[in-house]
């Protein structure tokens, strides 16, 4: 048992109006008997292992696909052998439920290692070095040398060892999680990876298969749980065929002037050096067409650039500005873990929170939300769970609606750019495509350009009109270039 999907399920029931939006929509109300698993392609192996012994007789790589994150998480919970707590909300005090969870967790005997959909939930120690050293814990090896070897094997720089887990980008965390899973391969009977491709740059996907192969070599089984449309190459399943949206492109301009962003280091308890990302471009400004794909290797600085554009991070040197015809001010972001951005238990509570002191904005945002909900309902006929799930007050509530509420709130302000950072997280490609298409339609109607940061852009190929590529250049510079949307 590893990871904390169980505790996430538990936390989903914590009643509060806080900044953390805990995901009651992920698991509440799903009927276990009514799973709608779908086979995608004839070669797909589906193994229903509900007999209490999830380890099959011979080692295999099982690839399973699910239509929604809720189904995927239930399967993850089943494979990991984690305690299945009652999920009704507000029925019992949080601490008692938490204690029950710990009691059950301490008696769990399942030895399947779980890489949850969000890699940050896989870590227990403060730094990369400590995480890998504890994973490698052995009296026989030199942990420092073994940690350096492991980082090298996963094409990560040695300097990453000193970094804190919190300072890593989503992609770097995913790669360190793979390195840790590799280090633990001899200790567990099997490995489950949930949506591993969401965070990993396509050119690094061989590392996912390398870890899976390692377990198989050791006669252990591997489950790769994917949402529909993710990583179609692995089992030859057909990728989602998206429909075309009817909006025209919106031009916008990125003006960059020797932009440096600094993440300060620290001296204590372990020395972490200051990290500086230097953004440069061949021309002082880049003319782009919305919707714009932002792509680049793991850790190159895509999310950092987004935070600077939104004014969350201040540049240490230089500047970056956005020029778009219909909007002004800073950009707004939907982050990778968008559900952390919800200030309320439900999407509607979030909107009410954000516009508590702005009646006009509240009305406009509810209208935008209604517009998005209606178009999602129309486009996603058949997705009963994701489209129709409601909270206790009758409002629609799912991860999809949470993201829609965040988008609606941001569009009311008409920012200079709406940035969707990995919007496909937690969504199948059909859901992601539909969500992004509807958000783009709504944004363009308001004159707001949209940028999509993604490692899995196949689902969005038909939507995107230009691409901004971030690459490592000489002298540690990160070079920004406009390019065509890659195939």
């Amino acid at each position, binding site marked *: *048992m*590893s*990871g*904390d999907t*169980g*505790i*996430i399920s538990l*936390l989903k029931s*914590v009643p*509060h*109006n*806080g*900044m*953390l939006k*805990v995901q009651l929509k992920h698991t509440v109300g799903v009927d276990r008997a009514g799973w709608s698993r779908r086979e995608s392609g004839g070669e797909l192996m589906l193994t229903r292992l509900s007999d209490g012994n999830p380890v099959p007789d011979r080692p295999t790589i099982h690839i399973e696909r699910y239509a929604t994150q809720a189904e995927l998480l239930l399967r993850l919970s089943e494979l990991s052998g984690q305690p299945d707590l009652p999920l009704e909300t507000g029925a019992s005090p949080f601490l008692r439920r938490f204690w029950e*969870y*710990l009691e059950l*967790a*301490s008696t769990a005997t399942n030895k399947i290692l779980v890489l949850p959909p969000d890699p940050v*939930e*896989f*870590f*227990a*120690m*403060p730094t990369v070095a*400590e995480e890998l050293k*504890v*994973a490698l*814990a*052995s*009296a*026989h090896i030199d942990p420092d040398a073994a940690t350096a070897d492991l980082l090298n094997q996963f094409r990560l720089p040695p300097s990453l060892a000193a970094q*804190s*887990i*919190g*300072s890593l980008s989503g992609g770097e965390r995913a790669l360190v999680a793979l390195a840790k899973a590799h280090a633990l391969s001899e*200790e567990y009977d099997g490995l489950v990876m949930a949506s591993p491709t969401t965070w990993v740059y396509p050119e690094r996907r061989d590392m996912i298969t390398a870890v899976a192969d390692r377990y198989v070599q050791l006669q252990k089984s591997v489950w790769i749980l994917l949402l529909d449309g993710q990583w179609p190459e692995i089992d030859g399943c057909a990728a989602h065929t998206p429909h075309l949206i009817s909006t025209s492109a919106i031009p916008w301009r990125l003006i960059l002037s020797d932009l440096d962003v600094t993440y*300060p280091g*620290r*001296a*204590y*308890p*372990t020395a972490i050096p200051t990290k500086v990302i230097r953004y440069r471009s061949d021309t002082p400004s880049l003319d782009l067409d919305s919707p714009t794909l932002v792509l680049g290797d793991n850790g190159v600085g895509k999310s950092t650039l987004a*935070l600077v554009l939104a*004014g*969350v991070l201040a540049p240490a040197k230089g500047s970056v500005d956005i020029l778009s015809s219909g909007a002004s001010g*800073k950009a*707004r972001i939907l*982050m990778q873990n968008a559900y*952390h*951005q919800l*200030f309320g238990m439900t999407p509607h509570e979030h909107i009410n929170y*954000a516009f*508590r*002191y*702005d*009646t*006009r*904005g509240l009305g406009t945002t509810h209208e935008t939300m209604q517009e998005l909900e209606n178009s999602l309902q129309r486009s996603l006929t058949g997705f009963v769970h994701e489209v129709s799930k409601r909270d206790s007050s009758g409002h629609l509530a799912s991860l999809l609606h949470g993201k829609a509420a965040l988008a609606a709130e941001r569009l009311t*302000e008409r920012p200079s750019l709406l940035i969707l950072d990995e919007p496909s997280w937690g969504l199948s490609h059909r859901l992601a495509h539909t969500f992004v298409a509807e958000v783009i339609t709504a944004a363009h109607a308001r004159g707001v350009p949209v940028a999509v940061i993604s490692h899995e852009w196949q689902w969005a190929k038909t939507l995107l009109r230009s691409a901004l590529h971030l690459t490592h250049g000489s002298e540690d510079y990160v070079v920004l270039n406009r390019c065509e949307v890659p195939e």
Partner: protein
Amino acid sequence: MRRIPWVLRLAILASLAAPLLDSTLVTRWVPDNPWLRVEAMFAYMVAIWIIIGLNTGLDKLFSFISVAAVMVIATVIVGAIVQDVLGLVIDLTGVAATDEHLVSIVYMLMVSLPYAFFFVSSFSVAGLLQRVHAGSGALPRLARWVPGRRLKMKLIRAPLRIAVCLRVFQHLAEIFPPLLTVWREEHPLAILPRNRSDWQVEGPISAVAKLGNWVWNALWTWAKCLLVFAFRIVPAVDDEVRRCYVKLREAPR
């Protein structure tokens, strides 16, 4: 501080914290004058800050102090208002003593929070597990003298519980930056809501009342988030610590 052997480190840190438990350890050396006692506490606070600052650097120290300052605003100002309101209703005797008590609470909060962050970051969970491995025979030997099987097991497992608690408290400090990023995205001015066009519709008094309500909600939101995020790491840490402990215990020393 981390270069000092852990026993000595623990002793130094414990002695630094002693006045937090008993403030007379600071004030007993000064003449019986309220202002001098307050100044002695101020000197103690500055001394602790200097020790923390020398170890962690100024940036870290200031971030610790800013968290403490928020706590002070939330607790002491409310206390002071209550005291003043009570003073209007009943004749409080010994108001000076109450003021001194409030000031001492301010100092203690301004010391204890940075100190707590410094204390938990002064020990490494990975290092603790290694030390448990190095001395893994000692606890079972000690447990022989303890009556009852449950108590014996509790003693043997004590380092694991300490390691988990230590890591959870360390994690509490680590979750600030990502939460702050989310907060800043939603609240660009940090201490005011992003959308506030109704703020002054009903006049300045209403604006002040709304601000007070908003600040209180913001503090409450932060407190809940910190609690939830701190707990969130427990299963992963518990699992990792137990696995590492068992593995090290099985390995030859």
